[in-house]
């Protein structure tokens, strides 16, 4: 369509090769969804309290920067649950049960840190491993149901969210060593079971975030460089073709769900084993029969990161960043729930952002570029080529 002799044509070709790459379109889609979500949030703020909307919105966008330690701290669990959802999604499985796996992982980690007497250097590592096992258990069961009994994993993993919630709350409330009935929360975790802090003043950020990023990178390598990762992605693209090629679909489903569950479980362990900025205390858990929000935020993180491990690392930090900003909006009279609204809108749009972007690009190409071509088309050659 473009003039071949145009000196710009080579340049435009090279830009196209970038803009047409898959990663770029995913990034563009995510950015578009984020912008639409933030605009929606801004409108909600304008409607509810117009006077403070500007300052409130600037807290949402930039507020997290002043608390960068906390941003990383709160990003840790949702990075793990995001990986749990995204990893399963690569295979075409929708692991909506990250909440239940997260809760189980948290309980297993709590159990090891309270009930087992281990030497200092090993204790927190053992607790994290226990968390992984706990989550794995709750990922494994929906995986088995899916692979062997053809039960939709969405339904089973939702059921396991509730089962996990009731089970863990009951087990914690029945254990006097973990649970203090006067504060109706779990007790402070023994010091040697806490993950070492990174030592940023006034923040709980700990080694967990570094481990989580490392796990993300390992997953990236597994997906890109191993047979298992290849089979996983192939099954995600076309189940029947991969079966025909001799890949063991059933085994891979169970394995994927178990790994995904383990990732969410580690997220639960990271969340509960964190040291506190206040000396002598630590994270506690209150069993009040509510499904862990971090699991659902993990879905948001995974979708925004396009289920790509590296994308998930960045999207978890972004989500955590606007969540921190959201809590700061209460300084000017807003409620932190505004961020949950923004996140939900972002996911809604990210579900069809790629289609929307393509439509927009098509529109730009056909309308605007055509006009361009027509307007500077003085020689008949180009017109003929059209």
């Amino acid at each position, binding site marked *: 369509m473009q003039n071949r002799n145009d000196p710009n044509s080579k340049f435009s070709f090279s830009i196209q090769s970038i803009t047409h790459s898959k990663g770029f379109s995913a990034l563009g889609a995510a950015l578009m969804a984020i912008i639409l979500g933030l605009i929606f949030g801004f409108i*909600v703020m304008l409607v*509810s309290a117009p006077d403070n909307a500007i300052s409130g919105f600037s807290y949402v966008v930039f507020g997290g920067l002043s608390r960068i330690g906390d941003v990383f701290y709160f990003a840790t669990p949702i990075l793990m649950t995001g990986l749990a959802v995204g990893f399963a999604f690569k295979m075409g499985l*929708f692991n*909506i049960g990250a909440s239940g796996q997260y809760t189980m992982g948290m309980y297993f980690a709590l159990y090891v840190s309270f009930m087992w007497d281990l030497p200092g250097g090993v204790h927190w590592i053992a607790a994290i491993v226990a968390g992984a096992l706990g989550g794995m258990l709750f990922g494994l069961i929906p995986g088995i*149901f899916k692979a062997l*009994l*053809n*039960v*939709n994993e*969405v*339904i*089973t993993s*939702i*059921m*396991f*969210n*509730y*089962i996990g919630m*009731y*089970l863990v*709350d*009951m087990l914690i409330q*029945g254990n006097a060593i973990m649970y203090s009935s006067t504060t109706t929360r779990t007790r402070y975790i023994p010091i040697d079971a806490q993950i070492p802090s990174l030592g940023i003043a006034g923040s709980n950020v700990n080694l967990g975030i570094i481990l989580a990023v490392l796990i993300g990178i390992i997953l990236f390598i597994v997906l890109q460089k191993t047979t298992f990762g290849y089979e996983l992605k192939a099954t995600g693209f076309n189940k029947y073709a991969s079966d025909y090629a001799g890949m063991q679909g059933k085994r891979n489903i169970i394995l994927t769900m178990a790994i995904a569950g383990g990732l969410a479980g580690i997220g639960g362990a990271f969340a509960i084993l964190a040291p506190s900025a206040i000396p002598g205390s630590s994270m506690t858990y209150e069993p009040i029969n*509510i499904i862990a929000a971090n699991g*659902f935020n993990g*879905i*948001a993180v995974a*979708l925004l990161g396009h289920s790509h491990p590296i994308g998930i690392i960045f999207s978890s930090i972004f989500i955590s960043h606007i969540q921190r900003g959201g809590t700061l909006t209460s300084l000017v009279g807003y*409620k932190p*729930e*505004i961020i*949950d*609204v923004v*996140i*939900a*809108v972002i*996911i*809604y749009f*990210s*579900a*069809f952002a790629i*289609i*929307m972007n393509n439509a927009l690009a098509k529109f730009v190409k056909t309308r605007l570029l055509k006009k361009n071509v027509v307007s500077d088309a003085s020689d008949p050659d180009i017109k003929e080529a059209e």
Partner: protein
Amino acid sequence: MDTVYYLVQNMLPVAIPLLLVALGGMFSERSGIVNIALEGIMLFGAFFGALFVLIVQGSSMNPQTILILGMVIAALSGWIYSLLLSFASVTMKANQVIVGTALNMLIPAVILLFSKMTFNSDGITTNISFYIREIPILSKIPVLGELFFQRTYLTVLIGFVFLIVSTVVLYKTKFGLRLRACGEHPHAADSVGINVYFMRYAGVSLSGILAGIGGFFYAVGITDGNVSGHSGVAGFGFLALAVMIFGQWKPIRILFAAMFFAFLRTLAYSVSLIPFLYNLGINQTYYKMLPYLATMVVLGFTSKKSRAPKAEGIPYDKSQR
């Protein structure tokens, strides 16, 4: 016998929301759209229904009139909210499960935000009683009267009416046949001149209406007319999906599936009133887990020979073969 009456009387208001929402899910999936947003639509309908009740509760209107008007409001709001799903999944061809999840996440946050800013609470609290001690004449029928027409809610009767209407619409009308065709083989349906996009919008809209009503009935029958953004509808939208699968996408089977789950749930919450179960001394939390565990077991047995609509979850694209 009193225990049986008690269980049935308490079971029906729980079964009806499940039944209605599962019927809604059935319409949506029969048209080819997986509606995982049922939970959110329920909460949306419940919220606007309760908001209406809150506004009119001071007036001298009859509680049952308020209930019916609230139901209409809930149906409308459920329909409007479901349009977000149909727009994304039919027009924009987005992944239906992702859109549904987003819609589920949006509503509790919106309700919390709105309620905290206007009422300074987590939701809406109403103080009107829709409870019916006994329905005249009908309650005098031996056994049946005591089971169905005493200590109940109007929602139970309305629910059964909706069941009959849904069955007729799905199996005995041109619309129902076309809807089912779109869920099984949309290209074949399109080739004989059925507008697949329209039918899918219609299917999702019906599910929105039914789920909105179901949500309001949940608020009426289970949470005494209150709606909270925190507890929402306690996973009833998801349970309804399980009920729908257990009911194999067929209205009458869905009724029995809903009854089964409602029975387990009622049992779980009335353990202390049943001497036999209470004396067993099992932690009551196990009973609360029972409906979910039963779902797993039931699905494990029924999913092998699943009669799911063939084209569900796949966006319809005219140009594909």
